[in-house]
């Protein structure tokens, strides 16, 4: 899908900017300066306004991430269940990007992680290492 297709798809929607950015991010893996310019033009916004939105939200990337991303929950409930010890014990793996996320709603079975839309719970060092290795 091209950017033009995405913009056409959201024509006439109320408050279309976030849905557009989600589609752009999903399609291209990031929201580029070029995309920001075209989106701003299409929605009659300034580039600064669109850039302000893109940079505000944690989900949008300005550059593509070539590595697989694992989002590891490090919020209080997972802290209580030992996630920090997992982080300390993790073997550094430059081929995988480990990101922190604050809460996946799996707070009674943490430590928890998400890869794409796949969710993982009851992680211990061995399970986390195996998960990272499988990516």
């Amino acid at each position, binding site marked *: 899908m091209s950017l033009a297709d995405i913009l056409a798809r959201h024509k006439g929607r*109320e*408050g*279309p*900017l*976030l*849905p557009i*950015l*989600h589609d752009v991010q999903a399609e291209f893996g990031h929201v580029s300066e070029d995309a920001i310019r075209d989106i701003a033009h299409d*929605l009659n916004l300034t580039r600064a306004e669109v850039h*302000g*939105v893109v940079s*505000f*939200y*944690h*989900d*949008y990337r300005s550059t593509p991430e070539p590595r697989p991303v694992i*989002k590891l929950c490090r*919020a*209080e*409930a*997972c*802290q*209580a*269940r030992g996630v920090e010890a997992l982080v300390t014990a993790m073997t550094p793996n430059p081929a995988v990007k480990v990101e922190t*996320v*604050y*809460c*996946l*709603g*799996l*707070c*009674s*079975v*943490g430590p*928890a992680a*998400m890869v794409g*839309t796949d*969710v*993982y*719970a*009851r992680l211990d060092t061995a399970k986390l290492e195996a998960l990272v290795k499988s990516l």
Partner: protein
Amino acid sequence: MKVRISDDALAIACGADAVAKAFSDAGSDVERVSSWGMHWLEPLVEINGIGFGPATPADVSDILAGVADALCIGPVAAHPFIARQQRLTFARAGKTRPLDLDDYYATGGWQGLAKAREIGPSATIEALITSGLRGRGGAGFPAGIKWRTVAGAQADQKYIVCNADEGDSGTFADRMVMEGDPYVLIEGMAIAGHAVGASKGYVYIRSEYPHAIAKMEAAVKACAHLIAPFDVEIRVGAGAYVCGEETSLLNSLEGKRGEVRAKPPLPALEGLFGKPTVVNNVLTLATAPWVLANGAEAYAAYGMGRSRGTMPIQIAGNVKYGGLFETAFGITLGELVNDIGGGSGSGRPVRCVQVGGPLGAYHPPSQFDTPFDYEAFTGVDGLIGHGGLVVFDETVDMASQARFAMEFCAAESCGKCTPCRLGSTRGTETLDRVLAGENVDANLALIEDLCDTMKFGSLCALGGFTPYPVLSAITHFREDFVVRNKA
């Protein structure tokens, strides 16, 4: 043989899909249902009402052969964790296929909306006021009063916005509603729309909940004809905790940075796109059908003081029996942690419980006699928030937890107001000095002063409530701070 296994994200994260596949491969008729909310037992397998869990694919043959005694919990509905609850909002949990309209209809679905249409908008609002239902997102504002304000506003367009940006650690009730009983939320929104004269509803779901998003998208499509002319659209957040604050959420829906708006104007009068807007939490809206169908008095009969009805309490963290426990207000914190939760999961003594998410206070066991009630928790310098409990055992370092609260606030601050934006960063730095043992008493005095500024000077609850975890940690667990003193 019919085998029921949840397709809730938590069950899936614990391996439910593989267990379901193993049963299918063995020739069983697998039905994917909502979760009962007994999370330590997931994946829970239910056959003719008898439960087995937590199950793995390797257990399938034993369960089918009737020799899985070690996993068997007996009749699921009679399990003490379930039998002790008063499930109104979660009446269907574990019992229905989430997206099956026949299941929903057969279990009393759409009766609340039918009643609202029968009695009309003003009687519907009256019922909500009489029920005493307060906003379950955390603020606890009477839902009926909010609806009445929106109903009384004159405008060409009004909106119902469901706040499904459940970002608090230790909470998952919204997720369970959306994944387990999506129609009840949509019905609640349709009731609200009917009551206030709004034709359009938005559900703003956080992006960390892909399963809930998928279920809600499918549910909205499947039941569009039943709620028409009301129309519901799903919108997805983009990873900003602060968007759980209602005015920030509205800005986000409008396609802007999720910055908090100053109030007034109230969203009820000038909300989404400047129009009168009901912004309610998932649990608030999902409870409206029960209130309408069963009567406001029946709902108000539960609870204590000004906290009427039931609260879906989420028991999480380092706890033996974690899960969803819906009960009337009034149960004590100690009952929840020790009797129901079974104490810590590690087996070590419980040191504290954080109630109400990252902005909630840490409560020591000396406060375990506090009843679960909005006012009672205010009375012990805490809050019940969205009803999440995070249990910590004795290994927790409370000075680090206090620092984390400031760090979290700094990471998630929208930047609009100075006490939150700068205060959280200065607070983190000051607590770093405490952790390093530099002038601990003087720095703690600074933190207490800073917390006062943040509490009274911030625009919203993010900066305003971050002092709760920080100050409660200092007040109740001062030994964790002073022990570092090198001065």
